[in-house]
């Protein structure tokens, strides 16, 4: 029996989540959902977050008004993305960087 080490848990820094929330809510129609529980999926961004304080956020890319139960999840052969959301993701990333450079964790 062997265990091959995979990725460590992905742990978000509280300050980074607060910053991301401020950025997300400052975007037009912006909202930030605080997930009540972790998700049992994994990410190797965890290696970065072990060394650098930061966070990963999820971006909903379902179509507008789509029935979420009917959307194919990631790793599905029919997984689809509503591309009109992508600029929002770009603005969110750029916003996090700008705000952190300007104000740090404030």
């Amino acid at each position, binding site marked *: 029996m062997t*265990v*091959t080490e995979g990725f460590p*848990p992905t742990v978000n820094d509280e300050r980074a989540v607060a910053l991301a929330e401020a950025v997300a809510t400052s975007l037009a129609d912006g*909202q*930030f959902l605080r997930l009540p529980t972790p998700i*049992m999926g994994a990410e190797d961004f965890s290696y970065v977050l072990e060394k650098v304080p930061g966070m990963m956020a999820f971006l909903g890319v*379902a179509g507008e008004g789509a029935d979420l139960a009917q959307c194919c999840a990631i790793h599905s052969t029919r997984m689809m993305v509503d591309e009109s959301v992508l*600029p929002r993701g770009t603005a969110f990333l750029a916003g996090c*960087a700008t705000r952190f*450079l300007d104000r740090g964790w404030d």
Partner: protein
Amino acid sequence: MATLAQRRGLQTVPALILLLGASLLLNYVDRGAIGVAAPLMKSDLGLSATAFGIAVSAFFWIYAPVQLVLGSLCDRWSVYRMLALGTALWSASTILMGFVGGFLSLFLLRMVLGVGESIIFPGSSKMICRHVPPERRGLANAVVMTGVALGPAVGTLLGGSILATFGWRAMFVVFGMASALWLIPWSGLVRTLPVPTGADRASFPLKKVIGRWSLWAMGVGHATSNYGLYFMLAFLPLFLVQQRGFTILQMTMLATLGYAVQAISALAFGAVSDRWARAGGSEPRIRRSMLVVGHLIYGVAILALFAVHSMPMIALLLCILGACGGPISVNIYAVAQMFAGNAHRGRGSAFKTRSATSRAFSGPRCQASSSTAWATAAPSPWRPRSPLPAVCGGPSCSRASRKSRSIERRRAAIAAPMLTEDLLQDAHGIAGRITALRRAIHAEPELGLETPKTLAKVKAELADLPLEWREGPSCTGAVAVLNAGKQGRSVLLRGDMDALPMPEETGLEFASTVPGRMHACGHDTHTAMLAGAARVLAGRADALPGEVRFMFQPGEEGYHGARFMLDDGLLDPLLDAAFALHIMPNAPHGAIGSRSGTLLASADTLEIAVVGRGGHASMPHQTRDPVPVACEIVMALQTMVTRRFEATEAVVVTVTQLDAGTAFNVIPDRAFLKGTIRTLSPEKRHAVWKTSGALPRTLPRPTTARQK
């Protein structure tokens, strides 16, 4: 920085500062020594005043250019070793000074001495920036600069006595050997020092140093403060002897008094400025005020020296000079280090070049305007000039700093609303580019650590932007750096590039063209959004007060791409913050979400081989059938999860692959199980390994890793 210093071996820092002070003392002993030896050397070597002046000032001429080079090397190589190297060079050439035979050997040795000393100022400034928090740099600089004040005093006093008894050659040999002894405690200390940490290892491009005029104003400040120092060192001794008729002994006592007062004053003002800053005073204001007031009084005192003749009055003025020299010498460096922030990044070298240049000017100037010796500085052109630059240096620096701060404030004000609508507008403005890149990547998925085509698409998309690209040997990961080395904070944005080994059934017109591969985890969109962010931020690069790095990472789907990029040092120096985005196709349109603390689980691979002994399916009792055992294990793992781990602490063990046998009537020799272990904390992760009897083995480097 304070916490960093506290965390990483603060106890060694006082020793470091003391040794830096000792190093400067040893370097500056030479100033006093060469001063007292000058007349004897000149006549022993049979040199004209001009020749002697040229040979001795070679030290300063080489100092300025070499300091720029070695200062930037201090940023690249170990600054501790560089300083040791410089001191070794210094000691060796000081010893050899005892054996000079004529103009050429003197000229060359003075040049080597200049090279040896030129490391100490950029080097010590870098070490102070690295190890000492800003509100303690006054005293740290004071201790270091005490070496500058005490060195000539020791050199003059001790050098004079050795010279009187054993001659100047013996004096240099003794001083050179004493310098070499410094290397012993230094090599011991360096081993215990904290490792250079991320934040201060970035290189700071020279063009950015040269481009900031406020830093040039700092250079002028350095020049004027050195002017004052060299007034004491080079001009004063001969002025006292020739113009005021003091004996050599009286001159030595007077000069030593000035240096001693300066050393005490440096320590006192260093400690006071620190305490003041810690008590809540504005550090820049405190340090710059001390510089301005110090320069003013210094200038007036120099002028007054020419008016007085009596020994007590001269002694009093020298005390005033020393008292002002203290805060000047301390704060001129502390202010320079303030510009450098936590990371010195070679800027000190540029300041010091200005000051070295001023010294370089002062050397030949002394020589050219007098016929007696290099140090017989001609008083007449100096007299009206000396107070002027000294007075101007301070305020001009402070004006420069004020202006640069106000520019930064304006930039911050511009940056604030940038957060909301502007960025989103910019992003919508390039929506076409983002989508096009996403579709191009989606159509041609690549797996694992090798995503060269994807990276090429990213690079082509961003080719027109002012980004510095970094790549490593382990994978096709690349980091694009915007505002590389810019003073301020640094932030990482990350996107992944690899796809999954699975068929695509979306029917999209840009669906995967590679059978059995699909971007089903959205990495195509992550990369496209990240490239978009790079374009949006590059458009505002000047207004961004820091560095942004964009991490394009392959091998997320189980290949540890991020770890390989970290191991390759692509993220060094480590950044202050990191952000990443992952799409969710079944989360509401445009919603962004996350949580504090643990967001995602650890994911380990579990593999079990059950080794039995096969046989005919009709006679299982004659075999050791591995299949029922494997089934037992699958169930036992589930029992383990519920019976050994609290229900409130998530542990998932899932067997996803079960493989055994080749025919309906053959019991196989072996059965194989494969699955995954998911936990939310390192503690639970290790507990599952231990409980399941697993023997975790470290991951071997994948065979796909490229070796360059």
